[in-house]
């Protein structure tokens, strides 16, 4: 699956991938019981979700250059 050539659409795709990975980590941590699951959930899942959402929000406010 190729990424879109349009910069905003590409940002949305990358953001989507990051969020999906974050959600999968969250789902795994919910099934995995133990103190380390909580740490992985916060540090890995949380970081992926935050990065994905931040990228999406940045793509909303970023203005494409005239070339695009």
């Amino acid at each position, binding site marked *: *699956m190729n990424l879109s050539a349009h910069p905003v*659409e590409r940002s949305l*795709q990358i953001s*989507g991938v990051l969020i*999906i990975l974050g959600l999968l980590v969250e789902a795994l941590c919910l099934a995995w019981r133990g*103190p380390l699951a*909580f740490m992985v959930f*916060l540090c890995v899942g949380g970081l992926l979700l935050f990065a994905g*959402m931040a990228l999406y929000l940045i793509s909303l406010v970023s203005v494409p250059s005239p070339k695009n």
Partner: protein
Amino acid sequence: MTAPAAILYLLILLSVSLIAVVFVRPSVTVTRGGKIMAFLVLFFLPVLCAWMGISSELDRSKSTAFCLSCHTMEPFGKTLHIDDPSYLAAAHFQNHRVPADEACYTCHTNYTMFGTAKDKMRGLRHVYVYYFTTPPPPEKIKLYDPFNNRECLHCHEGARSFEQGAVHNSDPELLPAIRANKKSCVSSGCHDVVHNVGTLANVKFWNGGS
């Protein structure tokens, strides 16, 4: 699986499916409806999932099984099954004076505004010590601060057995001293046998109940 966990899994599944649509066809976000959908699946639903996940993890971290999942805590878990009512933790656990599934948390959280948050920070430090350093042997583990009577009085204050107990009333200054945390409930000669993990080899165990 509990109902909130099932709902969370469904939400995660829904989010992943909708994000996959945006990934495969990002051009759908050009329309007004597509923009709303993108906001829902790339921001609103992940925030909701994260919030529900954190809430679920925090709730789970209060469970007795969670605390006892570290090997260092196993001897403390065994003391809950000692067949001797003079062991304070065992008597509370076996008689359900504390919820059996949240036994550790009930006594070892501080009943103050930020008590839970403070304990979670300590818990994070425990995870670090457990995985990245050499944890101390169970018999060497001590409380950060002397046990505060506030944790006991949270349940016992106002209870008839506490207020009218013969020993508690043997000295008119004792009850006020207990309430003011000047005389510890677990001080020597009172309720001083709590976990005593060093005595595990010489005790009998009660394996009844759930």
